[in-house]
């Protein structure tokens, strides 16, 4: 049994590691900034909600103006930091780092859930077509902006969630959703959506480059607004998933065993799938298709902390956050004037060899 203390210690340790990596990452760039200054600037960027402001929001297409409440924030700290450094850290590097951490956190958590759910070491968050769905939404927005006026990120998010539910609906018959059917339906739907994406790419004209960069996954030009869009879904989703870790463990024994141990199998499967899909969608929608984080990070953490989801889920999520911050720091080399390298390329370029290394050492053979 994993004592709560062990879980807490691991989580705290990995959180500290994540913060350290964030500081190091924010110190790197065309302008070198001292880590201490970075830390102070980061603290200065911390805000807490201080009030509610009501603005208006216009519903797309219908042109309805509806009241839209939004939170006001105020800063907590006011350390003395050079103004330009504060801007570089607080407004340019930190949002990107925060977004990388959010997306990595979500993808690794969703990957952990999917691998356990499918009892398949090759499962990753996009296995039931979430990423393909997001890509269809995103590429459609880029290729045919007039058709989809809701913006790239909402379109990608909606595409992702709709695809997940479509695959689930296809695989469900008579109240049961066999995992194998789900997997195959996911593969088939992904293939179909892949065809749609290819078609749209061919006809995307000037948007081709933007579409390709999106498809490869990137975090450039991230803003706090992106973080605000993604983080609530990811955090809420992973928190709720955290309440189902015992069920995930029992499901590893097989569905019939799980039923005999009191788990409402079909309901739990639906919940896990829905939550993992939403978390993945929230990540993919803002960062594009970033592969291998959700596949490799859970495997590595499973080697370290074991298969118990009570400790595996939080540690995988935190490690995923650190992993993506590190890889995106490498990807930011484009800022030095190097050719642009989308972070998705780097995660795959680093993740795939590492995965093969584990595979050859026979350490990744099962869950």
């Amino acid at each position, binding site marked *: 049994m994993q004592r709560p203390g062990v879980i807490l210690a691991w989580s705290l340790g990995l959180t500290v590691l994540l913060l350290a990596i964030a500081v190091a990452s924010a110190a790197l760039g065309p302008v070198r900034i001292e880590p201490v200054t970075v830390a102070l600037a980061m603290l200065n960027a911390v805000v807490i909600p201080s009030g509610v402001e009501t603005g208006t929001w216009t519903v797309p297409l219908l042109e309805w103006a509806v009241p839209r409440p939004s939170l006001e924030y105020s800063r907590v700290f006011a350390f003395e930091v050079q103004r330009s450094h504060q801007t570089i850290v607080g407004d340019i590097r930190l949002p990107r780092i925060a977004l990388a951490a959010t997306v990595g956190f979500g993808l690794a958590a969703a990957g952990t859930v999917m691998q356990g759910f499918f009892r398949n070491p090759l499962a990753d968050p996009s296995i039931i077509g979430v990423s393909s769905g997001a890509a269809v939404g995103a590429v459609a927005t880029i290729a045919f902006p007039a058709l989809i006026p809701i913006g790239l990120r909402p379109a990608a998010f909606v595409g992702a969630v709709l695809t997940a539910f479509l695959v689930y609906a296809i695989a469900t018959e008579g109240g049961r959703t066999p995992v194998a059917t789900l997997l195959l339906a996911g593969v088939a739907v992904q293939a179909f959506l892949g065809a749609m994406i290819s078609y749209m790419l061919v006809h995307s004209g000037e948007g081709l480059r933007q579409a390709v960069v999106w498809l490869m996954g990137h975090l450039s030009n991230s803003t706090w607004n992106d973080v605000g869009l993604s983080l609530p879904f990811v955090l809420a989703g992973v928190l709720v998933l955290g309440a189902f870790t015992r069920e995930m463990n029992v499901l590893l024994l097989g569905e019939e065993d799980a039923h005999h141990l009191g788990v409402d199998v079909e309901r739990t499967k639906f919940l896990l799938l829905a939550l993992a899909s939403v978390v993945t969608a929230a990540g993919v929608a803002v960062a594009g298709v970033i592969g291998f984080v959700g596949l490799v990070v859970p495997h590595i953490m499973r080697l370290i902390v*074991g298969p*118990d989801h009570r400790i595996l889920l939080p540690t995988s999520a935190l490690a995923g956050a650190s992993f993506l911050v590190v890889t995106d720091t490498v990807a930011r080399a484009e800022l030095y004037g190097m050719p642009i390298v989308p972070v998705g390329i780097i995660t795959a370029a680093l993740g795939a060899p590492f995965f093969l290394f584990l595979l050859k050492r026979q350490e990744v053979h099962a869950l």
Partner: protein
Amino acid sequence: MIDVRDLSVAFGDVSVLEDVSLAVEEGTFVGLVGPNGAGKTTLLRAISGALEPDTGLVSIDGTDIHTLSSRESSQLVSVVPQDTTLSFSFAVRDVVEMGRTPYRSRFSPPTVEDRERVEHALERTGVDRFADRSIEEVSGGERQRVILARTIAQDTPVVLLDEPTASLDVNHQVETLELVSELVADGKTVIAAIHDLDLAARYCDELVIVADGSVLERGAPESVLTSARLERAFDATAAVTTNPVTGSPVVTALPGEPRGDADTDDDENANTATGERTNGPARVHVVGGGSTAAGVLARLEAAGIDASVGPVAETDVAAETARQLGVDRLTVEPFSSLEGATITALDRERRRSDVTVVADLRIGAGTRPVLESLADEDAEPLVVVESTPFDERNAVDEGARDRYERLRTRATTGDPETVVGRVLEAWNARSNADPDGRDRHDPIESDDD
């Protein structure tokens, strides 16, 4: 406790269970036996609630199991599955702890009772010795105990086990079933599919023979395990004897075709098999070899008639069958010619017996003394059974044929399937004609020979 009524389950067009009804009292250990594919696992899955039956009802403690939520049913019934997916490295203790899942609430830590039940289960099964090892590292027998410990931690009034001993070696099989018996002694109601008939007979209070998707028979092991029923259920020849150590029935499956529907034609066979035979020969000697003689031995043994066999080559299937049945046998080196001592022994066995059966006797150069011994008048009553034409068995000459034909004319003849009937016929004919003739066959006297 468990009430199964008119249960039918079909997978697609294939009917797996048909109108199965079964009531099990609280605190009994019921064994499901029957051939592979008979529907034992399906029946267990329907009882556990994992499988929705097409028609019929399963109620446990008065509640229809299929109306309960997983959580509710898992507090009533626990299941030890045939094989548990264990391709992950949970600690043994974690696996046992999963047995408490039905009682745990989502956010609170395990209660004192949860902890105590887990510790109790670990100790009781002896799993505590390796509780911190990974489930992947323990042996098959230990793993089975871990799953049993999980079931004990789950602490349900009904426990279902699907082939709990299938992959275990013999000491672990016994250990596992001892443990299950203890649970039954504690008042739990257990249904287990057990393919090993001897173990099932030894440990279960009642046996249920499942064949072709229905319940063929149920009752105490001694009354259920009869060769006639087993032949019907398993479509194979079987002999039922008694284990001298445990006193429970021992089933030996034998080579050879079953004799057909035991209920209709060979009534005397079916009756003798259930021990209702009152009158007949006490001992029969079989001369011959091969699967025909083996089948004859099995049928005699199944009918409750003591048998002996020989001379037969040590490597002959009939000798092996005799060894398994615990039948006296007179063995010789393969392909050796029969010496005087062997023939003397044959004569002695023959005289001790009430009837001599000649089963597919092969005639070689060395078997001439056997035919001469059988030519003796006191070899009667004689029964000759054949399944291979004489020419294929005769390696010598026409003289052997003549001797064999003379033997046949003195004997009651038949095929191996009906040998018990022929033996009874021959014995009755002889004892009616010569009511005092049996005295010389008294085994006690013949021991002094």
